[in-house]
């Protein structure tokens, strides 16, 4: 039996970002919370996601910017650990991610009497991600073509389809799972991708994991 062919092919996009400086800076946790209240979704996205591509080979991987600053500059290890452990994959929107971050800090502040202040020059600088999306030349109509495209594209493409579409654009699902299920009826594969915690992999690690999942599925297809 020939492999299923999508009516609507999957076009791999890439997402490139330019960093906008907001001029907002925090020297302690109270200032951080105050700025967080006014931070846009794209600011939250920048500080919780830019390291996924920018630090993508670091081992062990640093946590998000908020956790890193709290732990390394303010030396508040316990709060740093709590911020790093926020389960981003379970949070449906950037607004809710912001509220969760504020709640974790406020919860911690309620038990503290004194605020530590960052040394001069080590304040937290709030930055904003300007995201540009553009189609690459890679397109897939079958599962095998999808795997071939996945092998070729850059890390920004993987990050875009797995993280950005869901969190920034408000889609309920990641792009890969949605297309695989909707166009190729690959329900199990789509569910397996959905259940990955992409925040605990490097981009290359994620690519290899996805490729292995697809290879297993294709082998199963051939042996039938």
């Amino acid at each position, binding site marked *: 039996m020939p492999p299923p062919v999508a009516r609507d092919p999957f076009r791999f996009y*890439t997402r490139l970002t330019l*960093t906008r400086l907001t001029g907002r800076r925090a020297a302690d946790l109270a200032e951080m919370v105050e700025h967080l209240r006014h931070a846009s979704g794209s600011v939250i996205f920048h500080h919780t996601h830019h390291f996924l591509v920018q630090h993508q*080979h*670091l081992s062990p991987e640093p946590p998000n910017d908020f956790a890193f600053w709290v732990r390394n500059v303010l030396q508040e290890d316990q709060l740093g650990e709590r911020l790093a452990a926020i389960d981003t994959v379970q949070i449906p929107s950037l607004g809710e991610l912001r509220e969760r971050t504020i709640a974790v800090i406020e919860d911690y502040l309620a038990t503290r009497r004194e605020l530590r202040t960052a040394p001069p020059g080590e304040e937290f600088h709030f930055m904003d991600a*300007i995201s540009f999306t553009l189609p690459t030349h890679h397109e897939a109509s079958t599962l095998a073509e999808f795997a071939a495209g996945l092998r070729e594209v*850059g890390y920004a493409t993987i990050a875009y389809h797995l993280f950005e579409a869901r969190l920034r654009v408000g889609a309920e699902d990641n792009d890969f799972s949605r297309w695989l299920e909707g166009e190729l009826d690959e329900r199990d594969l789509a569910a397996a991708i959905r259940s990955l915690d992409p925040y605990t992999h490097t981009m290359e690690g994620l690519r290899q994991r996805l490729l292995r999942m697809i290879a297993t599925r294709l082998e199963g297809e051939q042996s039938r």
Partner: protein
Amino acid sequence: MTAGLDAYAPFVGHATIEELRLLGERLRGRKVQNINSTAVGGGVAEILNRLIPLLLEVGVDARWDVIRGGDEFFAVTKTIHNALHGQAVTLTEHDIAVFRETTEQNLASLALSDDIVFIHDPQPAGLIEKRAPGSHWIWRCHIDMSAPSPPVWEFLRPWVERYDAAVFSAPQFSRTLPIDQVLIAPSIDPLADKNRELDARTIESVVTGLGIDPSRPLVTQVSRFDRLKDPLGVIDAYLLARKYNDCQLLLVGGSATDDPEGAQVLAECRERAAGHPDIHVVELPPTANIEINALQRASSVILQKSLREGFGLTVSEALWKGKPVIAGAVGGIPLQITHRYSGILTHTIDGTAYWIKQLLNAPDFAQRLGENGREHVRQNFLLTRHLRDYMLLFLYLSHLGESLIPLD
């Protein structure tokens, strides 16, 4: 001649090169005029020399002009440069008159009609006076502006506020401005003599030629002999570490003949190093790129113990060679080093000595820092990332204030 874009694929991958060409397609034929104050020497000219041919290759109609000015003008702009770096200096009425007069002369002689005019640093900032309707203007500041002298900044600010966007190298350099400000770090070229791979024989020949023992650990700082790079602090840190670890120290920097204070700092370093045969204080000409490359590659640990820093690209140069780096947490250095992941950030002489010992005694950890550092530079501080950011900025000028920009 600068290598073509495909020559960078082995370092950054074909997908990155494809992304650059996709961006270029969306800027095809767009005219971009770069203007700075010198055609040779200095980091800005070095970067433009490498970037302009690559912009042309991907389809951007980029060109580069240089403003003209006399000695008096450049003396004033040197004062402005120092003031923006934080020195407590002011401009006299005569200085202001000289600056305005030279700006007027350049306004009269330069054609400023391109789609995008990209002004580098304060010297040509006043050219915005002749902004053509429909054109976009960018001011790129390469200076550490974290604590500028207020009267000098107030002199420049009215011009800067008339641009569409300002570009800074580190977040702490940004100012409160009514225009968009973006972060674009400088970059290193992996194909340049200063960074390309070298064979072992070349490295050993350079090292032994300077009287350094290649069989013993070498701790190196590459920088101008400038108090802000704290070379005497480096010697003190080395001497503390040397009590416990057999190692050599190399302080190597560019020629200081045109800088009276540099010559004095060099003399002080030599005086402090006297009687310590394992401390090598070496002055090399600015063209000694392969020698600097070899010395970085021969080192066990690289220091950049700056007290103040614009960006500190020597850090990226060392990280790109897979070296563990101990550096001051100033200027753009924290963008290049994530403490204990891709290098070590320190604040004191004692801290620097402590980490020299740690890294010499824990070579596996030191190696991991170096490997992480190289990958961090690969993702963030190579020329191709710089080219991408400039093209994104050019595209952003048509979408000012937006955060999600589809380029279908």
